[in-house]
Each structure stands twice: as structure tokens, then as C-alpha cells.
């Protein structure tokens, strides 16, 4: 009896968690804003509208490019920091690690307004660069974390074996260490891309009318429009992100990347 109640509660919670996402996908096929579960009325026309929308297309290009660039830069920074810190015990190591991970502790909105003010004062007006720099700040701590975790888990004896077989320090790094931490590093890079793509609290202060990101575009659209093309655009986002999630899980285990 208790068991049934419990399972009922858990199922209800699961439904609560997944409902909004399912609803968005269903609406995207619909002919109106009301939920229509009758498959005969399903249409792809809203996907067409979304894809044809200039706003959405530009935003998609921006988000993808900035996301990729931020992920690349963050991965580089993460590798540098990770290699410098992992497996080393020196005075101040934990403080240094905390410092490098500190952006994770500052509220997004605070980072957003602070960067906005500094960029304006310094004269950096190009929204593209503002967004890129902001996203790099937000994402590189995740890369640092995954690199450090991957290196800590890596058994040193592989590198030692390579060295005894005559490999130079660089060769050990390039041919042994790097390939072996690749799954973890790639997971970090993917995660950085997703964080950048989805971000709002910082991006909203750094974007402008000409250069905007997908979430911001959706928000703008929602202000004066209520048709299912938003749902279609959102569904595209949901499906791509879920795919990323599965790839991430395969590569490195989602819990480790998100939960730290």
C-alpha cells in the first residue's frame, strides 16, 4: 500500500518535471495555441515559419558560432589551468582552484551588469565580442573542473611507461595523456557549448538589437507574438540539447559534469 502511494508520488513528480518539455513539442505541431492532441491536425508549418524567420536564423547563427568559439577557448583555458593544478600539491593550491571556479559562485545577473558597465566604460561596443567574452567567463570553470577530474582519475603509470620507453615530455602529453583524457575534455567542451547557448542572465545585458542569441530571440518574440512558431523554435532547441545530453552521458556521465 505504502509502496503504491510512493510510486504514485514519484510518477507524479516525473510528470511534473517532463511536462513543459513535452507540451512545447506537442504545441509545435499544432494549428493553434491550444493543445490539440488530435494527430490529424498536426502540421509542420510552424517549423517552416520558425526556420524562415530572420530573427531566429540570425540568432541561431550567433548562438552557434559564439557557443563554439566560447567552448574552444574555454577548453584551451581549462586544459592550461587543469594541467597546472591537477596532481600538484603546492601552497595555495586549493585557493587557486577556488579562484578559477569562482565565476560559478557569482549570480548570473551580477556578472551581466558588471560586464555591461565595464565594457561600456572601456568602449567595447561590439555585442558579438561582449557576448563571447562573457560566455568564456561563464563556461571555462566547467572545463577546468572536468580537466582536473579527468587528470586525477588518470593512472600515472601509463605516462611513466611511455617515458621509460623513450617518449619526450611533449610526446607523453600529446600521445598518451591527451588522448586518454579526451572523453572528459570533450564532455567539458560540449557542456560549455550548451551553457553558452542557453544562457540568458548575462547575455541579456550584453546583446543588442543586431546581435542576439536564440533564447533572447525567443524571449523577444514572446513579447508580441504568441503563435506556435515559438514552440517550433523551442522544440528544435529541446531536441538538439537532448541529443547533446545523451552524447555527454555516453562520453563522461552527466552527473559528474553537472554535479561536480
Amino acid at each position, binding site marked *: 500500500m505504502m509502496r503504491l502511494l510512493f510510486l504514485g508520488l514519484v510518477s507524479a513528480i516525473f510528470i511534473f518535471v517532463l511536462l513543459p518539455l513535452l*507540451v512545447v513539442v506537442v504545441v509545435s505541431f499544432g494549428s493553434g495555441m491550444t493543445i490539440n492532441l488530435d494527430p490529424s491536425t498536426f502540421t509542420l508549418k510552424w517549423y517552416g515559419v520558425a526556420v524562415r524567420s530572420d530573427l531566429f536564423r540570425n540568432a541561431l547563427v550567433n548562438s552557434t558560432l559564439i557557443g563554439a568559439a566560447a567552448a574552444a577557448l574555454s577548453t584551451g583555458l581549462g586544459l592550461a589551468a587543469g594541467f597546472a593544478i591537477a596532481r600538484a600539491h603546492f601552497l595555495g593550491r586549493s585557493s587557486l582552484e577556488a579562484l578559477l571556479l569562482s565565476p560559478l559562485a557569482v549570480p548570473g*545577473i551580477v556578472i551581466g551588469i558588471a560586464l555591461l558597465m565595464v565594457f561600456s566604460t572601456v568602449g567595447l561596443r561590439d555585442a558579438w565580442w561582449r557576448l563571447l567574452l562573457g560566455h568564456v567567463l561563464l563556461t571555462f570553470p566547467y572545463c577546468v573542473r572536468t580537466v582536473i577530474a579527468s587528470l586525477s582519475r588518470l593512472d600515472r603509470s601509463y605516462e611513466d611507461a611511455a617515458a621509460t620507453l623513450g617518449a619526450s615530455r611533449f610526446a607523453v602529453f600529446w600521445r598518451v595523456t591527451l588522448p586518454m583524457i579526451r572523453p572528459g575534455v570533450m564532455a567539458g567542451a560540449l557542456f560549455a557549448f550548451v551553457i553558452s547557448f542557453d544562457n540568458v542572465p548575462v547575455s541579456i545585458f550584453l546583446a543588442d538589437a543586431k546581435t542576439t542569441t536564440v533564447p533572447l530571440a525567443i524571449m523577444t518574440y514572446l513579447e508580441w507574438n504568441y503563435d506556435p512558431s515559438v514552440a517550433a523554435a523551442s522544440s528544435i532547441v529541446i531536441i538538439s540539447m*537532448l541529443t547533446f545530453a545523451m552524447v555527454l552521458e555516453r562520453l563522461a556521465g552527466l552527473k559528474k559534469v553537472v554535479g561536480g
Partner: protein
Amino acid sequence: MRRVLLLTPPIVVIVLLLLVPLWYLVDISFRENVPGRVTFLPGYSLANYIAALSDGFYLSVLGSTILLSLAVTLVCALLGFPLAYFLWRAPPSMKGILTLLVIAPLLISIVVRAYGWMVILGDQGLLNQALISMGLTGQPLRIMFTTTAMFIGLVHVQFPFMVLSILTGLERIDPLLVSAAETLGASRLRAVLEIVVVLAIPGIITGMMLVFTLCMTAFVTPILLGGSSSRMMTTLVYSQFNTAFNWPLGSALAIVLSVASLVLVSAFLMGARRIPLVRRAESAGSKG
């Protein structure tokens, strides 16, 4: 030497993109605004903080932000524990997929999630459609753009964080302890309450601290689901920057918000640690 070289770029990024802007933020919060323009009067003043902390309106917004965050935190904890327990005891074959289902929403843009709730809670949304067709109400219930909508949206957004925190804490508990309690005569429910819940307290506390902080500084969900009735500090800060161009006041409000959040969370932690049961749970966990 190599280490210094490697660390230079990351540290430069942190300094230039985080520390300097934050310092700048604090600096600006002590300046006075020139109305309507993005410039400030020379010299420092406490005017912004005085306004933020004594103006009835600002205080009431802060108050409602805190109350809402508290409510969301509590509900997340109450709903999060059963789900985390379920995942903890799930057979290994199902565990991965089920956990993924709970965590995956985190990877989907917060805007999309908020939009999903708009569709559900709207006047012609799923909830109202269902209620009307079941005859439970004649008129559509107005939920969108109310505090209730914000509440539901925030619970949904923060929920995975709570579940993850509690689950991490649960994984350190030996499941055999439940069996041991049962052999000693405890019903399953009793065993869970006396053993699992107690030992999970550190994880629950961590989750609550995390969720509370995230709620206080939550931005997108309140704006999209609360609209103009959203009395949250973050909306206030946003309007100072977007509409009023009063950077100093906006900065001061943001700092007041952050400090309030920090103070409340610390007070909670210290207060919790005074409870003997909490102390026991923490020391039991640290040796486990």
C-alpha cells in the same frame, strides 16, 4: 615555471573579466546617478544604499523575493527527497536513464522551459483546458503572470539541483542499514525516516542552500512567468539598467540582493548546525 606560464591566461581571464568588473560594480554602487543619463556625479555617496534599505517599496520587493525563495526551497526539498530516494534505490539498469530524465531539463534553455509553463498555465492552456473539460471550473483560472506561476516555474527549474544534492548525499549511505533496521523490527517507512532521512540531512541542507541562492538571483523565470506583477529584486535590477539607466542604484540593489542571500544562507547553516540531530548527521557522514 611552466606552471606559471600555464596559469597566466586563466588567471588573466578571471582578473579582467570577473574581479575587475566586480570591483567596478561595487565602486559604481557608491556613486550618485545623473538622472536619465549613464553618467555619475563625481565623488562617493551612500545615497543608493540608503534608498535601497529604507524605501518601503524596495524593502517589500526584497521581502517578497525572500519569501518566494523560501517557499520554493521548502517545496523542492519536500518533493526532491522522495525522488532522490527513488533514484537511489532504483535498480542499476534503470538508474542511469531515470537520473538523466531528471537532469536533462537543466540542459534545455530556461526560456524554453518557462515557455512550456506559459502554455500549460495560460488562460487557454493545458491546465485550464483540463479543468474546464472536467467541469471543475467554469471560467479559466488566471494563473499566468501571478506569483503562483512564478512559484511553479521556479520549483520546476530548481528541482534538479535539489535532487542532485540529496542524491549525492544518499549515495554515501549503506543501503544495508535499512535492512538492519528492518530485522530489528522497524517498518520500511520507520527505517527510512529514522535512518535514511537523518543521514541524508547534510545533502538536504546543501540542496536547500543551493536552491535558495539560485531562487534569490533567478531572473528569467520571474520575468517571463510573473510579468509586471513580478516583485522580485532581479526584475528591479533589470529595469534599473534597461529602463531607468540608473546604474548606481541598480548596482546597489544587486549588491544588497547578493549580500542578503549570503547572510540568510549563512544564518541558516549556522542555525541548522545548532540542532543536535543535524550535528550527528554531519559527523556520521564525514566518517562514512
